[in-house]
C-alpha cells in the first residue's frame, strides 16, 4: 500500500483538518520528509485531475474539500437533502400522535415547556394538522397527525402505530442475556437452591 494512499485515507476519514505533525505522529514508520512529499504529490494529483474535490491546506492542516467552482451544484444537494428532526420536535410529534386530538396547552403540560415554535415547524413540515377548535373557553386549536405523518413513518393507518406496551415489552430482559452477565464464581454456594428435574443422572 503506497504512503500516498495511506495518507489519503486518513485525511479523508478525519473529521477535521490534519496537521503534518499529527500525520507524522500517526505514521511513525515513515520519515517526516516522505510524508511531506506524499502530501505535496497528493495536492498536485488532485489539482491536476480536475475532479469534484481536492486536497487543500487550510488553517492547521490538510483537508479534502469540494472545488469552489462547484459550489453551485453542491448547494443544490444541501437544499434537497434529508432533514433531521430535533428531539423536541420528535417528542411533541409523539405526544400528538398518541394523544390526538390534543391542544397546544395539553402538549405543553406534558412537555413542561412552551411548544409554539415546535408546533409551528411541525405544521410547516405538514406532519401535524389542525383538526378544529375545542369547545372550551378560548376555543383553542386542536391538533392531530396528518396523512404525511403516516407516509413519513411508513404507516398504513393510525392503528398501525406501535403501542407503548409493545416497545416496552422489548425491554424485559431476556433471561439468557441476564445469565451472561452473572459473575462466574464456581466456589460461591448457590444462594437459592433451584430445583431442576435433572438432578439425578439419567440412564440412557
Amino acid at each position, binding site marked *: 500500500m503506497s504512503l500516498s494512499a495511506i495518507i489519503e485515507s486518513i485525511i479523508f476519514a478525519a473529521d477535521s483538518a490534519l496537521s503534518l505533525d499529527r500525520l507524522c505522529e500517526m505514521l511513525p514508520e515513515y520519515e517526516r520528509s516522505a510524508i511531506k512529499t506524499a502530501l505535496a504529490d497528493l495536492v498536485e494529483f488532485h489539482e491536476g485531475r480536475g475532479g469534484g474535490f481536492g486536497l487543500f491546506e487550510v488553517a492547521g492542516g490538510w483537508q479534502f474539500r469540494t472545488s469552489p467552482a462547484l459550489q453551485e451544484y453542491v448547494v443544490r444537494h444541501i437544499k434537497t437533502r434529508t432533514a*433531521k428532526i430535533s428531539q423536541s420536535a420528535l417528542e411533541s410529534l409523539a405526544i400528538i400522535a398518541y394523544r*390526538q386530538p390534543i391542544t397546544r396547552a395539553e402538549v405543553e403540560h406534558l412537555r413542561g415547556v412552551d411548544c409554539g415554535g415546535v408546533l409551528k415547524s411541525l*405544521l410547516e413540515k405538514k406532519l401535524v394538522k389542525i383538526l378544529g377548535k375545542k369547545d372550551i373557553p378560548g376555543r383553542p386549536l386542536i391538533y392531530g397527525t396528518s396523512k404525511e405523518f403516516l407516509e413519513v413513518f411508513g404507516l398504513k393507518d*393510525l*392503528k398501525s402505530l406501535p403501542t407503548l406496551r409493545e416497545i416496552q415489552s422489548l425491554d424485559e430482559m431476556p*433471561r439468557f442475556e441476564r445469565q451472561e452477565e452473572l459473575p462466574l464464581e464456581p466456589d460461591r454456594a448457590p444462594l437459592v437452591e433451584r430445583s431442576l428435574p435433572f438432578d439425578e443422572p439419567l440412564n440412557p
Partner: protein
Amino acid sequence: MNQVRVENPPLLDGFRDGYSVHLDKFDGPLDLLLHLIRRNEVDICDIPIADITRQYLDYIKLMKVLNLDVAGDFLLMASTLLHIKSRMLLPPDDREEGEEEEGDPRAELIRRLLEYQQYKEAGMVIGARALLGREVFARTCSDPALAESRSEEGPLEVSLFELVDAFRALLARIPAESFHDVAPGDSLSIADCINEILSLLWERDTLQFDELVRDEQTRERIIVTFLAILELCRLKLIRIFQNEECGAIWFVPAVAPGQAEVDGEAALPVA
C-alpha cells in the same frame, strides 16, 4: 460431577480448558445442541438422541453447579429432548403411527436445527463483511463551507422506533400522577377509536356507524365507538345524521378537508 466426568469425558475436557468461555458462549438451546452435535462429530440428520440428550442435561446440570441462572428456553428444549428420547425407546405402535403420520420423532428437531444452523452461518457471513465504521469509513465531516447552510426542506428522515422511544422517554421523565391519563390504554381505547374514525374520515366523506363496528361486534367495541363519536361530536369534529327512525347513522366531517389547514395557516404566519 464425578458422574458427569465418567459418563462424558469429552464434554468436561472442553470445560477444563475454559468452561466459563464455553458457558456463556451459547446463544440458546439450539446453539448448544448444535455444538454438542459437532463435538460428537455425528450427522445432524441422524442424531444419537440418547447421547446428545444426556450431554445436554449434563450441561444444564453444570450450569446449575456453577450457580448460573438456567433460562427457561434451555429447560424447554431439555423436555423436548426427553420426550423424543422416550418416544424412540417405545416400540413402534402401528395405530399411533397411523394417527400422527410422523416417522422419526426427531424430524421436527432436525428441521429446526438445520434452519437454525443456516441463520447462524448467515450471521457469521454477514458479520465478516467489511463494516462501515469498523473496517471501512466514510467522510465524517461535511464541507465546512456547507455546514452553515443547513436546510430543513428535504424529506424527513426519522424512524418509527425513534418516535415511540421519544414518547416513552417523555413518559419516564414526567411524574406518574401527571400522566395517569396518558398511559397506554388497553387494546381498545376511546382515543384509538377517535384516531381510527378521523383517519377514515380523511379518506372518505361519509361513514356509517355499522362500518365502524362491523369487524368486531363486541359489546366493548360498540360502547367505545359510541363514546368516541360523542367525543368527536363534542369537539365539533364531526356531524351526525340519521335519515329515518332506527335508520343508519351517518357521520360527516364537520370541517371540510383542507379547510382545517387553511384555518391553521391563517392562525400562523406563512413561512
